């Protein structure tokens, strides 16, 4: 792909895959609960890019992927709000956001 040529759907899908993998890595490795939540947002963002790009290249007139992305954004905004409220509630009890402090329940 030369720089000035038009780019195809694969470029977007590849970008999305890389972003998703980065988010996944963050979710698996960060020790701060807030950082994990941010990594999950990164994954959600990657999915949205995927949806919009696939929509644009397959059925642009329908804009289906765009709607899907809108709803995905709404949902992930709701999820992140709920998650942060949970993290704060836990912080009040345990005075920490370290994810490894959350291993009292096991077995």
């Amino acid at each position, binding site marked *: 792909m030369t720089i000035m040529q038009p780019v195809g759907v694969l470029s977007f899908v590849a970008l999305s895959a890389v972003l998703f993998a980065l988010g996944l890595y963050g979710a698996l490795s960060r020790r701060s609960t807030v950082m994990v939540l941010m990594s999950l947002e990164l994954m*959600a963002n990657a999915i949205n890019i995927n949806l919009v790009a696939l929509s644009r290249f397959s059925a642009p007139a329908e804009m289906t992927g765009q709607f899907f992305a809108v709803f995905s954004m709404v949902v992930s905004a709701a999820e992140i709000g*709920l*998650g942060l409220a949970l993290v704060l*509630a836990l912080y009040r009890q*345990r005075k920490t956001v370290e994810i490894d402090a959350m291993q009292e*329940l096991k077995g």
Partner: protein
Amino acid sequence: MTGVGWFIPEYLLLAGALVALFAERIFRREGAGAAAGAAFAAAAAIAAVAIGVRPAAFVGGVLELDQVAVTVRVVLAALAAVYLLWLSGRGMGPERSREATALVLLATLGGMLMVASRDLMVLFISIELATMPAYVLMGYRRDDARTLEGALKYFLLSMTTSLVMLYGFSFLFGISGSTSYAGIAAAPSAGLLGGFAAVFVFVGLFAKISAAPFHYWAPDAYAGAPAASVAFVSTVPKLAGAAVMARLAALLTPGVTALPTVIAIASLASMLLGNLAAYPQSDVRRLMAYSGVAHTGYMLLALSAGTPAGNAAAILYTIAYAVPSMAIMLIAAEEGTSVDDFAGLVARRPAVAWAAVVFLLSLVGVPPMVGMFGKLVVFTATLGAGRLALVLVAVVMSVVSAGYYFRIIRAAFFAEGRAERIAFSLPAGIAVGMLALVTLALGAFTGPLLKVLTSAL
């Protein structure tokens, strides 16, 4: 818009949630909101029966009421009604129950939309609507760090897998150019990417219904949560998830021929891990979490047959699991969550002790309780697909399951326990009694139910 009236049950649930949230001050009594919610849910169940099957699609074809959707939504609403009836008598422990009532009704609403949806977009949002109240319910005791820890585990693991599932949805859309089930079914075989998409979707669903090896959240979250929350979260969303799974398996298997094998692997892992890990547990919630994993395994066993009969059997089995499982957790919510808390139950509350026997025997699969019929249809469907070895594992594991379920019976009947009994609650008694009746009598309706479910898949 056509068909607005067909979704009266959903409106009723929403109205019930709003009433519970905002109108409790009018009733001035803890539990009145839950009672009102129970009435709304019961009305929703009756309305769902009355509306019945509506083959024509709703607004752009995103929702449809076929036999599966009708059956499952009736069961979901009825279970929610019974659960709220219990809640109106017992409450959520130290916390007030009006938020819980609203969340239960909204989660049920989400479950009903899940099974009715004919479009990935609607499906995704419905799944989230059914799951998000469950996070809150699992973390309902907000001053207890352990409860919140369990909820956080549930939240993070569930959200990760949700995103993986959504990634799968995006590829399914990319391959077929459509988010409707019809459009996806019409798309040609999609090769490796289609296979990945199907796996992503199923991994997400596996985690939602706690199938091994995607079940890790369940034991910890259940063990931290109030037993009353577990009673709901481990049953109603799971039933909706199983129905959706049966639908998606029927939808995707033609394009992704390896899908039944993936399901079979998850089934094997769930049956082995669930039953073995349940064996040494002493907390009823954790025990039921692992046994729930095991029952999910049996359900997946039927799905792995890849036939309409198998898919119908899977839904039927989940119903047969949900009823007694909810009841056992409700009893644990009343009596205490350790197996030892069941000690001497027969002396304290003989009726409840005998009801517990009915529930546990149904979970073991002893006739004439409904669980045995569920197992029978699962095994016959699976044998029909030639998976003899898996059925063998399932049967052996169901014997193992008798071992840990009997520990509860033994405690209830043969051990010395505390003498003081909790106060009698009429609504809670009626709720548990109704579940016992259904567990005893539902077996007789296995045939018609299965027929109805098979016709639509």
